[in-house]
């Protein structure tokens, strides 16, 4: 049972490997299959992720509820045309990919829940950008996805990865923390630094509420995927610069779980608080569902 980041880091040290590689062993042992089969299965998931990025950028479409669509393409085009982006082409690129996947999800397209459907763009967005930047193979990215899985598992165990239980911090926050940890490992950081990146992301999303307009996975979900991708890139850089979280990562995750439980139900995916009950949010709900 992997119940803490401390365990994850220990597992990596025991195997004299990255957390990602240690997780491949863990999964092979759990399922009683070969490590090659684990990696092949994860490569398949990566393939689906890349397809959703491409679909979202190349074939923008209105979402099922009609609230979003085409924003990823806009950002992608702006990123290509603007040589002097305020936040830099890497971040804006990762964000455009993340939003592309979130938009595909909202059109009933095919995605990989990561850890959930609502937060499905963050990990693929960040990893695709790093794959392009560092010219990495799909195997290397599949291994990074195993790093993501390890951190996701700890968050699911100690806190939650469900918006209905823990708010958006549990979905987009968890995804961002997973992506940041994997980014650190892809850039050659230590398991400890991956843990620091995870901690620093979660500190920055602590308390983020889940307040979907009309109850749909559209507004603000796609843009929260943008938040998650950009935050992951920045916190990965901070961890790689050897900046450390004053509060240890496992304590941060436990705190996130406690904050989630103390959020009022109106702010946990019920569409009865936050943006969902703004005048515009309510008007959109009425327009879509006629009530």
């Amino acid at each position, binding site marked *: *049972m*992997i119940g803490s980041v401390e365990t994850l880091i220990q597992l990596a040290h025991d195997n004299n490997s990255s957390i990602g590689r240690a*997780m491949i062993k*863990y*999964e092979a042992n*759990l*399922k009683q299959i070969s490590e090659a089969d*684990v990696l092949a*299965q*994860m490569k*398949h*998931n990566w393939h*689906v992720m890349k397809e959703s990025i491409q679909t979202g950028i190349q074939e923008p479409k209105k*979402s*099922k*509820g009609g609230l979003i669509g085409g924003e990823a393409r806009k950002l992608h085009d702006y990123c290509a045309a603007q040589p002097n982006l305020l936040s830099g082409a890497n971040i804006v690129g990762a964000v455009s990919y993340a939003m592309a996947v979130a938009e*595909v*999800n*909202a*059109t*009933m*397209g*095919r*995605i*990989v*829940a*990561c*850890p*959930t*459907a*609502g937060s*499905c763009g963050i*990990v693929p967005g960040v990893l695709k950008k790093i794959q392009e930047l560092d010219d990495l193979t799909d195997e290397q990215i599949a291994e990074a*996805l*195993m790093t*993501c*899985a*390890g951190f*996701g*598992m700890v968050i*699911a*165990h100690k806190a939650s*990865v*469900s918006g*209905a239980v823990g708010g958006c911090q549990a979905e987009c926050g968890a995804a961002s923390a*997973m992506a940041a940890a994997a980014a650190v490992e892809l850039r050659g950081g230590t398991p400890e630094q991956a843990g620091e990146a995870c901690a620093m992301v979660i500190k920055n999303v602590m308390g983020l509420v889940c307040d979907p307009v*009309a*109850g*749909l*996975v*559209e507004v603000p979900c796609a843009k929260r995927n943008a938040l998650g991708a950009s935050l992951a890139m920045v916190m990965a850089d901070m961890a790689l610069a050897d900046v450390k979280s004053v509060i240890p990562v496992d304590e941060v995750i436990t705190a996130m779980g406690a904050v989630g439980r103390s959020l009022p139900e109106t702010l946990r995916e019920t569409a009865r608080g936050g943006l969902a009950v703004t005048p515009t949010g309510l008007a959109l709900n009425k327009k*879509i*569902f006629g009530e």
Partner: protein
Amino acid sequence: MSEYSCFDIIGPVMVGPSSSHTAGAVRLGRFARAIAKELPQKVEILLHGSFAKTYKGHGTDLALLGGLLGMDTDDVRIRDSFRHAEEAGLIYTFTATDLGEGYHANTAKFVMTLSDGTVKEVVGCSIGGGKVLITELDGFPVEISGAYPTIIDTHMDQPGVIHMITGVLVDYGINIAGMKVFRQEKNTVAYMIIETDQCVPSYALEEIRALQPVLDVKFVKPF
């Protein structure tokens, strides 16, 4: 809490937008199809709670129908389920309703009319993360998760029947992961749900079916 797999976190591959309102709904449809054992002539789908309120925006209706048509949770044809249903000659209706107290917020009820005119009813709910629970079969309360191969049998409620049925499983080396027996009244019809670690071969099911007190046996693969 059982141990997580990496693929519980990075996965499943699914069509959006929601694991509970879309992926879970597909699985409910797939279970209804397994119970019907054929594409029904007609289906009335009743939607309760959050399903009733938001089904259009989440494509829950498309997902339930897609599952009934045999599509899996990652099938991109789900967004065109209405057209596929029409092409397959399936008559369908959706009704937002209130099934009453005690039903989970994401509950759907299938009322299916089969080719021989019989009517089959399935009630199930989507409990989050794509997981589902079947709660009623033809009005009987049950609990089926679909995570394991599942035997669903109806038999006359009398001493020794469970022993006879599990005896057949022993003969074929099939391990029982979990089981539940439900009945409405003593000495009438009882439902038994057996979840197994192995798939149950058809000849084992035939043996169970041939047992005198057994009225009907169905087998559903993990769905």
